[in-house]
């Protein structure tokens, strides 16, 4: 139930994003979700893709600094209060979120949220107990 996320070190200079995405494209990798956090000099690009291991190998071969991180993906109803309920489940158990990003599923009224927390096991238990739908790896990769 842990989803693999790629974290990629990208310097802030013209053409770097193009280079990274081109490597993924030429290895036939589909991007499922994306988030980028940046500072003045560099950013960390976080990606959920259909084949994380293959993407990792391709990026490493190109001498890009990259790592795989375990994250949690949940599905929440796309209406007001949907996200708030899921987050409360976590905060009730003092689980803090390092970062998160979300994307909509166009096929139905569901939003997917990627969560990075300190302790994945504890968070999964809390979400399960709170009846939040947790996505399986296969579900995410095959959207």
């Amino acid at each position, binding site marked *: 139930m842990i989803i693999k996320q790629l*974290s*990629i*070190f*990208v*310097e802030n200079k013209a053409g*770097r994003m193009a280079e990274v995405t081109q490597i993924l494209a030429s290895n036939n990798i589909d991007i499922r979700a994306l988030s980028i*956090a940046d*500072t003045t*000099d*560099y950013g*960390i690009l976080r990606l959920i893709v259909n084949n994380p291991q293959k993407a990792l190998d391709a990026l490493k071969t190109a*001498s*890009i*600094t*990259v*790592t795989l*991180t375990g994250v949690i993906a949940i599905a929440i109803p796309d209406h007001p209060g949907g996200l708030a309920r899921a987050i409360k489940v976590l905060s009730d158990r003092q689980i803090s979120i*390092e970062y998160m990003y979300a994307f909509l599923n166009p096929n139905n009224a569901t939003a997917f949220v990627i969560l*990075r927390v300190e302790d994945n096991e504890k968070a999964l238990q809390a979400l399960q107990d709170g009846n939040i739908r947790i996505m399986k790896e296969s579900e995410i990769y095959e959207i």
Partner: protein
Amino acid sequence: MSKIAIWDRNAETMRRADIRALQLERLKHLVGYCINNVPFYYERLTKAGVTAEKIKTLSDVQYIPFTTKDDLRDHYPFGLFAVPMQKIARIHASSGTTGKPTVVGYTKNDLENWAQMVARITTAAGADDHTIVQIAFGYGMFTGALGLHYGLEKIGAAVVPCSSGNTEKQLMFMRDFKTNALVATPSYALYMAECAKESGYPMEQYHLRLGLLGSEGCTPEMRDRIEQGWGMFVTDNYGLSEVCGPGMSGECQLRCGLHINEDHFLCETINPQTLEVLPVGETGELVVTTLTKEAIPLLRYRTKDITKITEEPCACGRTTARMDKIKGRSDDMLKIRGVNVFPSQVESALVGMQKIGPHYQLIVRREGFADTLEVKVELVDGSVLEKFAELEAVQNEIKNRLRTVLGLSVKVTLAEPKSLERFTGKARRVIDLRNEH
């Protein structure tokens, strides 16, 4: 370690008093030789009131004026030669990245002495007639490659004159020839190790055991990194083209300083600002007098290299004085907000860190009236990408280390792997933007 081999027992294990006596005798002769054969020295020494008869002890060398790189440039190309062209057997020149190149000549005797000196230092480092050595210094006008070449031939090594560059082919020869020794700059040796790892051949196919690295500084930390990369023993050697080239001094296998070939060179250290001679053991600029050079003898040549000299006996049995690894160059020294900074200090602070690569770049800027130093390093460990806090921790660790070593606060920038420039010759790691507008 195997039994210690000494190439020239006579010269290298002479009693200290005998070394001093030989140096004094040669210095007296040299002063007369310079006055009689080089108009430049005739003029300089006459003006300073120095004659061969006035040199009574070795410390009288302090009355002789210094010779500088500018003196060589001003007399380009052959103005300081002491012999007619018929006696010249070879000519070398420095790269001349700033201004005119400096040109040096060698008589047949000079070349023989040079090869003997290189034979001594390569033997001291552990090379012998079983050695198959690849020379990855650029051949040509540069003294490094040919200097090592003839000395290594003299001790019976098999010499592979690869020159620098074309790394893939170098690696192929290394595997196929079972090359067991490498002559290169430290930065190129490190780059070759990186390429070897990536080329896909298992490291067991390489047989390097000994690195004879030189022509640029190498901190102990950088040396460790090269040794780990190749699984070889690395020694440092020193020389500058103006006084002959490599072979002036070199490390023995105990690596506690570089043994100076004192029968050919008289070395002093001076304070580069006040120019006063420092007592033995104090760190300063190395000044060299060539005691036996025929073609272009130099009196008290200012090397700009910072080191210190010790006369303590070495456990290897050699009695020659030793100089420390070069700490930096007096003209590489950066003055940042009044603090003296040598690139080698930055290197030793960085090289031990696991999360970053061994290459770095220093950028100096002037912002308003204050100088700033930026250090760029390559981030190689992906595991710190989990959280910004961990990335910041890497940056802060580097900052703290540099503050401890330099006493300065610097800006640390993380760069992608392989984004900083690599060098096949001497590395140029400092970009000083202070004079640009």
